[in-house]
């Protein structure tokens, strides 16, 4: 299986004033195509930093990052933006939909930055919204949708560009457990039926257990646990 994400000995530290905070220490981490992997850790463990680095939102200080086999350590800001647009799909705890835009226009946002718009974009957005069960809410604004519905729209936005990997940061954190489980079921389905590669960051053991594999991060160091395939 080809590796989509391959971090080799990646370190990240922040300097605040005179103190240097080592957030990640020589982390090795990889995600293969079709993986459903969870990153588990307490707050301050460095799991968000890891996700930001994987998602090309943040840069590491040392080590190597291969995305689809290509080293991206030397990419500049504009190249990273393009790469993010083409290979990453983000799902956030707080959904982060643009309140002004309807569901379909929110989903179309990544396509816009790819130069896809008009009828073609609408077709793609409708298809993906149907896939996440939001077909009847195309022209609803986020304020007219429930939390679970908003997260489904956000997942559609993450998937619409057919990214290499979907990065979900506490995707169920703002939802009650029943709705949270529905969202988790959607991730599992997408992984199973469409071989979507998904990385979920969570502190919820129950969510982690539903993934094929769990990586535990503590004090910037990674321990690996393999739960095996639950299916």
């Amino acid at each position: 299986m080809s590796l989509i994400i391959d971090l080799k000995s990646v370190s990240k530290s922040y300097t605040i004033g005179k103190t240097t905070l080592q957030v990640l220490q020589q982390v090795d981490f990889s995600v293969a195509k079709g993986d459903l992997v969870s990153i588990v850790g307490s707050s301050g463990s460095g799991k968000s930093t890891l996700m930001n680095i994987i998602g090309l939102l943040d840069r590491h200080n040392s080590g190597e990052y291969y995305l689809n086999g290509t080293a991206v350590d030397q990419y500049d800001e504009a190249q990273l933006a393009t790469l993010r647009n083409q290979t990453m799909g983000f799902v956030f705890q707080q959904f982060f939909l643009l309140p002004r835009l309807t569901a379909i226009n929110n989903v179309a946002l990544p396509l816009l930055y790819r130069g896809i718009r008009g009828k073609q974009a609408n077709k793609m957005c409708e298809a993906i919204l149907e896939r996440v069960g939001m077909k009847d809410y195309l022209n609803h604004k986020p304020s007219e949708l429930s939390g679970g519905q908003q997260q489904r729209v956000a997942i559609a936005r993450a998937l619409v560009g057919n990214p290499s990997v979907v990065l979900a940061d506490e995707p169920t954190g703002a939802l009650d457990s029943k709705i949270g489980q529905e969202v988790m079921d959607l991730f599992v389905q997408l992984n199973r039926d469409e071989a979507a590669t998904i990385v979920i960051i969570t502190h919820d053991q129950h969510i982690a257990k539903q993934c094929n594999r769990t990586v535990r991060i503590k004090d910037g160091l990674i321990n690996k646990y393999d739960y095996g395939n639950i299916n």
Partner: protein
Amino acid sequence: MNWWLQIQEAYANIISSKLRSFLAVLGILVGTGSVVAMVSGGQLATAHALKQFSELGTDLLAVSVMSNSSDSTPELSTQDVMALQKKIPAIVNEAPYSTVYTDVSYQGEKIQANIIGSVPELQEVVQITLSMGRFISRYDNYEPYCVIGKEIAESLRKQGIKNPLNKQLRVGSRYYTIIGVANDWKENAFFNNDINKSLIIPINTAKFISAHASISNIVMKLVEYANIDLVQQQIEKEFQRISSDKQLFFRSAKQLIDSMTSQRNTLTLLLALIGSIALIVGGIGVMNIMLVSVVERRREIGIRKAVGASSKDIRELFLVEAIALSVLGGLLGVLVGLFTSYIIATFAGWQFEIFLLPPMVGFFVSVAVGIFFGFYPAYKASLLDPIQTLRAD
């Protein structure tokens, strides 16, 4: 992302916060409006004044002749002056004249009149039309004939003279026979006397009235678009030859218009500067509102960056929005400014016309203001770190 999409996004953003956008637009509107109104108003005033001058004839040149020393030099002769026309091709026609002062009366009743000794050419050069009789001709030479202005004819009418032709006026110690009556004559900046209040006599007879009568002025009609400066030089040169002690003073429409235009231009510039201050204040308003907008939309910026917007995309997003506000304000401001200048023109009694320059300048300056004041907020927006803005609160 392409510009058309950016504009659509900007439009949606502007619509979504109507009151705030309205305030930003208002600032630019007032600024652009005042620039356009003031500059248009200035130009309308200039056009009005120029039109008044053009009606007088922009092709006229007045020459005043002053003697430096008295007696010693020979008098300037009519023949010498009339010869200028043949030597300087730019002179189409010319009329020397002298003004003499003495009492004028009709049957013992005094009449207020200027006495102008001149040549037949005067009629054409300063455009005198006659209601009766004829103008002086070159065959009148030393004949005591005169043409009277409209107001003199009126004062004669008060004395019961309905047809003044062939009546005799006493001018000094001599009698002059009226041979013509002029129509109402419009004042002319290049002719020193009011024809309506004048008696025009053959220039040779002026000597009979006053021994000191001499050619003191020449009014010339030039070819259209003549090089006035060159013509003046040529006249100076000719005079050097004819009588070197004469000092010449020129008065041309070009001179008058030039000095007036430069005054007006200064005024217009001043007005434009005052308007620009309003425009800058408007620009600061746009910057202020855009800065607030950047802070408010921090999360949106983070989201956009996460889905693949580059810093350049973000910068353009906000820049286009600032420009859109300015363009909107600029367009409305141009309309308001033109309307204001229309009102000014109506009240001042000027003829209203639309000059292309002020609206164009107003519009493009407002766009430039939008770019200038929109750049900093847009730059700030582009620098925002998506990690910071996407942190869950």
